[in-house]
């Protein structure tokens, strides 16, 4: 039996300026407990696509559905309450605020009696953060910042988590830890959309992948098949087939 679709973006046309679309009909489908990765060269529209889904880029046409509900053009701040979490690529924590305040801020949309328990759950999941509660988030290491950004999004128990290049600027060792965390998150029942430049790492943990170019879908399929496809590797990843790590 095919798993239920939890998030879908269909024929999305979107861009920062009304007459200058970056996306020209791109889209994806995400099913329960799935990791889907969006790949493609720089400027393909990967980040713009998940920002459009997250309500941060105006959508001119197309449809976004979260489960049974259409969420196209809903204000960004309402989406996390509906179960759609988003972790931006850069500036994804409030650097001037403490780790604790970053989490309390996210917890504010929960009922009062659940806030402390959810913050404690995040500290249990990310012990590094628990040891640095009072530290300004801007003073965390790159990996710890990424963990805080993920914790902030997970704290409210979303059904879907979208991440924009979580490996950007991190050392390979830290990237490994971040991707391991993402697999744990998936195991907890959260479906994930992952935009990545690090093709090898993304395809290693993803179930399926979409390859975008010039704002359109060019290829899609199971991650292992795309990983071994020499034409795709040559066209979009700049070289040989992506070997499994």
């Amino acid at each position, binding site marked *: 039996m095919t798993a239920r679709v939890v998030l879908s973006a269909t024929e999305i046309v979107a861009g920062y300026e009304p007459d200058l679309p970056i996306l020209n009909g791109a889209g994806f489908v995400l099913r329960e407990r799935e990791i889907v990765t969006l790949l493609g060269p720089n400027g393909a529209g990967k980040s713009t696509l998940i920002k459009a889904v997250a309500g941060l880029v105006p959508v001119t046409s197309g449809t976004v559905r979260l489960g049974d509900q259409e969420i196209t053009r809903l204000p960004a701040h309402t989406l996390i309450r509906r179960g759609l979490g988003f972790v931006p690529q850069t500036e994804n924590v409030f650097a001037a605020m403490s780790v604790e305040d970053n989490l309390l801020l996210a917890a504010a949309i929960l009922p009062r009696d659940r806030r402390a328990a959810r913050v404690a759950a995040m500290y249990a999941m990310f012990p590094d953060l628990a040891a640095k509660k009072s530290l300004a988030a801007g003073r965390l290491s790159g990996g710890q910042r990424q963990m805080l950004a993920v914790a*902030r999004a997970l704290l409210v128990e979303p059904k879907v988590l979208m991440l924009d290049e979580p490996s950007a600027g991190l050392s390979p060792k830290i990237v490994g830890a971040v991707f391991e965390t993402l697999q744990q998150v998936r195991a907890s029942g959260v479906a994930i959309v992952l935009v990545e430049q690090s093709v090898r790492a993304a395809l290693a943990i993803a179930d399926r992948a979409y390859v975008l170019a010039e704002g359109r879908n060019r290829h899609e399929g199971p991650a292992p098949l795309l990983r071994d496809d020499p034409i795709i590797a040559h066209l979009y990843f700049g070289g040989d087939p992506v070997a499994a790590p």
Partner: protein
Amino acid sequence: MSLQFLADGLLMGAMIGLGAIGVTLTYSILGFANFVHGEFVAWGAYACLVIAGLIGLGLGIQAEPLGPFSIGWVVLLAGAAAMVFTGGLALALDWLLFRRLRRHGNAIVMVMASFGASMALRSLLEFLFSSAPAYFSQEIQIAVPLGLGVRVTPDQMLMLGLTAVLVVAMHLLITRTTIGRSMRAVAENPHLAAVAGIDVTSVIRKTWLIGGALACAAGVVSGITVQIRPFMGFDLLLPMFAAAILGGIGSVPGAVVGGLIVGLAESMAVQFVGAEYRAAIAFLLLIAVLLVRPAGLFGRAEA
């Protein structure tokens, strides 16, 4: 040598600092230098004067002074009502003017619009009340000696007390409450704040409301200790901006410390250099501090 000039500087600085809290909040969250803030100071003082008069007329109460102060509970009650009125005025101005301009995201357009709105509001105030000074009370205050040649009136002590209460309340609001965290989050990164579930538009409205109410508080204490004039806010505007920048944009304690420094610098300039140089000395100090700490005393340097 009398140390009276230090007391005068601290009193003036407390008043500047109180007004600067609103400046620093609106500057950090709305993202532009809001010149209307000075007019909210004056409108707040006049609103308090009118409401106190209406309470007196409506209830037939003589505004008896409270203890050693020149004002009674009627002015305090009117002050609270005026804070609500001025907050509402700020909100209305945002709805009529700034909300539309904000969509284009051009800070210089917002600054120029605030400059125009400031002049319009000041002229309207002058038209309604004339430029003649007004007073909450005609009671004569006897200054109390505090030692070392320093004398302070009970009204000035009341002003210091009110300022301290408002500063602590604002600091707790910003650091310990959900709305305070939301305001800090929007000031730092509005897009991330939205993704985290914060209704940025609602936070902006609350900022106008709180900023207007704080400007009113500064206007009322200035009106009690000095006098009420249509230009009172305009005269305080530059020192308030200096205090906010000196303290570090977005920092409530910074605004107050900045206000005290500006007040003391002006007072010392009067004492040692001459009254005509007071503004120059205060701003030279501002430039000197910013050269050493560009983000201000309590500000956070950009990453």
